[in-house]
């Protein structure tokens, strides 16, 4: 049974799709095929873009909304095919966003600078408590939008609008950040940066049940909780028009059931499969099995506040004692990619930045551990329960036992809420499992939150002034690319310090029915639904 609705997967579709089959009806947008398709999702937490940070809600919203910028389905590079005509800055601090004319919400309201400002102000406004609020932390005036700490319940924040947001004219929006940020244009394709129509303001609750967007599809009725969210093609959409008549997002609580439904021919597309059935799917479905890279990075972190893990050589020895290939082959059907970096090679350093530290070498591992003074006491392995991590954690533990001669291994698996609590309170006593998924195509999104001193997901308590400086230089750099160079340097430095063991990059493993074709799923697990064709 699928537990939480958080599925941290993503990937670009490198599909070997036989396009030969659809030579007849193609033609593009002739509305000849008004047929609907169905797509698997789990129950979303919310359908307000600024409040939807999990995969399922985001999948639906990506169909309903058109962002400022898009990400290419294959290369995952940013493309100016969205609502933004240009995004410019001279100092990386004040940005001018010019919009294309002609975009409308499905209720006829024009998509203008004010609608973006509306969405972003709603996202940043503290009392709304939206999950995507942290994306606006860099905006000038964010702090004034928050309820002061320790204030009485019901206290209103000082401001209800970001001082850094200015509507210059209907098609020009000016954004002032509190500090320069070279990657700003790249992140604007993320869900939290979608625009909101006036209808949101009059009744956010109602909006959540039937969001009004500016995308290739629009809602057909309201959100039928735990059953489905129906959409139809938005014929007024000026971008690439959808080929299918509509998409029904069918909600399942158990992904195995969804897969059975797909096998029975009742479901068209799944952007994930139950891991236990991937081998079966690969064999049975043939080219209907979809595999694509994902941005999801899996690692084993070290609590560096525990003296036994203070020496980088100990941490590196652990890494060298793990046979990633064997585990991937046995447990993940050979599908995942062994990680030799902290950032997916699609965004960050190419090649093998981790080098021999991420290569299986039991002899060297043992030697390195001995030189570093060995390991004493119980080795505690930490992971979150109920999410399918048991098997590989056990396999890793077996390898550490066999290759490093550590005899006493204990497992600690906790529900996610508890697990996070322990991580945040620095109460972890051994290697811990976590994953990371990117929201936008930039190394910055992998590095800053995990390795900057005191950052929100730096559960290692890792701190290196050099790394902090490099990350800051990247943020100040004069262009997206110049920033990337600095982040690459930072990645190398972090690998030298080795606060965590890179294990593997996951893959998107999905499936489609006979009747649909051209199913592309990108690195962020978005199905490019407008491109899907149906027989």
């Amino acid at each position, binding site marked *: 049974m699928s537990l939480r609705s958080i599925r*941290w997967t993503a990937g670009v579709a490198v599909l070997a799709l036989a396009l030969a089959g659809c030579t007849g009806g193609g033609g593009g947008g002739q509305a000849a095929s008004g047929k609907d398709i169905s797509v698997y999702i789990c129950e979303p937490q*919310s359908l307000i873009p600024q409040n939807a940070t999990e995969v399922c809600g985001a999948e639906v919203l990506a169909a309903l909304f058109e962002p400022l910028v898009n990400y290419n389905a294959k290369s995952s590079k940013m493309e100016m095919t969205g609502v933004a005509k240009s995004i410019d800055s001279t100092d990386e601090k004040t940005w001018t966003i010019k919009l294309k004319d002609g975009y409308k919400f499905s209720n006829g309201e024009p998509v203008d600078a004010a609608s973006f400002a509306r969405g972003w102000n709603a996202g940043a406004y503290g009392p709304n408590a939206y999950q995507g609020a942290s994306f606006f932390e860099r905006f000038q005036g964010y702090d004034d939008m928050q309820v002061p700490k320790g204030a009485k319940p019901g206290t209103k924040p000082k401001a209800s609008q970001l001082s850094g947001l200015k509507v210059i004219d209907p098609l020009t929006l000016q954004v002032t950040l509190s500090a320069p940020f070279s990657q700003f244009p790249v992140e604007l394709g993320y869900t939290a940066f979608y625009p909101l129509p006036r209808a949101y303001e009059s009744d956010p609750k109602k909006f959540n049940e039937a969001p009004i967007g500016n995308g290739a599809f629009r809602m057909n009725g309201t959100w039928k909780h735990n059953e489905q969210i129906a959409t139809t093609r938005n014929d007024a959409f000026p971008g690439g028009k959808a080929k299918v008549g509509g998409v029904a997002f069918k909600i399942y609580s158990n992904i195995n059931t969804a897969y059975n439904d797909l096998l029975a021919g009742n479901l068209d597309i799944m952007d994930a499969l139950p891991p236990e059935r991937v081998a079966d799917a690969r064999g049975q479905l043939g080219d209907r099995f979809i595999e694509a890279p994902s941005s999801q990075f899996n690692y084993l972190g070290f609590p560096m506040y525990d003296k036994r893990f203070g020496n980088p050589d100990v941490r590196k020895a652990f890494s060298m004692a793990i046979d990633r290939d064997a585990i991937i082959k046995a447990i993940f059907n050979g599908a995942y990619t062994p990680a030799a970096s902290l950032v997916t090679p699609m965004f960050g350093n190419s090649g093998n930045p981790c080098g021999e530290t991420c290569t299986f070498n039991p002899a060297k591992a043992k030697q390195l551990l001995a030189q570093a003074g060995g390991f004493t006491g119980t080795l505690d392995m930490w992971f979150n329960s109920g999410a399918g991590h048991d098997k590989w954690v056990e396999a890793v533990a077996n390898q550490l036992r066999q290759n490093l001669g550590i005899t006493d291994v204990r497992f600690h698996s906790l529900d996610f809420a508890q697990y996070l609590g322990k991580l*945040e309170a620095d109460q972890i006593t051994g290697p811990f499992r976590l994953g990371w998924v990117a929201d936008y195509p930039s190394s910055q999104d992998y590095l800053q939150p995990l390795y900057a001193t005191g*950052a929100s*997901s730096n559960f290692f308590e890792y701190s290196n002034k050099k790394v902090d400086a490099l990350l800051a230089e990247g943020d100040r750099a004069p262009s997206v690319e110049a920033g990337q160079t600095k982040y690459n340097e930072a990645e190398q430095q972090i690998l030298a310090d080795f606060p965590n063991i890179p294990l593997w990059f996951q893959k998107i493993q999905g499936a489609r029915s006979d009747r649909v074709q051209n199913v592309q799923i990108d690195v962020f697990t978005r199905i490019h639904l407008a491109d899907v064709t149906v027989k």
Partner: protein
Amino acid sequence: MGRYVLRRLLQAVPVFIGTTFLIFALVFAIPGDPIRALSGDRPVSPGTVAALRAEYHLDDPLLVQYGKYMVGLAHGDFGKSFTGRPVSSIMAERFPVTIRLALVAFVFELVIGLLAGIVAALRRRSFADTLVLVTTTLIVSIPVFVLGFTLQLLLGVKAGWFPVAGTADGWYSYLLPGLVLAALSLASVARLTRTSLVENLRSDYVRTATAKGLSRRRVVGRHALRNSLIPVVTYLGIDLGSLMAGAIVTEGIFNLPGIGQQVYLSVRNQEGPVVVGIVTALVLVFIVANLVVDVLYAVLDPRIRYE
């Protein structure tokens, strides 16, 4: 009779308060911050967490939280889920699904269980008797999730006889899940029918009826069976409540959006108000079902009188 019902209802009050408090306290005791967990591995601004914690009274001590909940309940407010939906509308959406499922299961239990029990009783100690005993027990001894998943795969996916998941096909969607849910209690119904019928077949009034020259069919059908049904009906009545709770696994496998699925997810997400709301409703069903059954008992069996 009226006084009896009143007394039973009064007795139900502490049970009701006790059960809801127990569940409330347990959900409260689950370690970890549910609000922080909403956003997964993802960084979330501390302001968001603080605002949500305040909104759901999560910083109050247990008794205050329970008090606030009860005050809300008295005003007909069941609270809301972490996704901001009122628990009352969640329940209104989900109870019909589970009630339908339970009814289908109930019919299966009644038909198959009774038939099996009657056959076993009439052919006592024969091969048929043993067969009924062993097969019904065997079904109980297979974990329900294995049974459900296997039937779904065989009869739904492979054979295509039944819908695999969801409620799109109306009552037809409930057949297979209903059968799986009923499987748990089949053995009990069959055994109970058998025991009770065997006892009645040996009673004096059956002997008298047979001596009077009535046909065996008439004796069994009109006299013995009718009286044997009393304990079976009792059992089925009480079982209706536990069927609704037993739906947790079945609803998950067949993707039926009922209360079982909801309560499971809500426990995992530590959504106290949702869990307690549903359990409250279940406890009410349970208490009322018990009461109705006891009253029915008195109506059916003239030997029983309540003062």
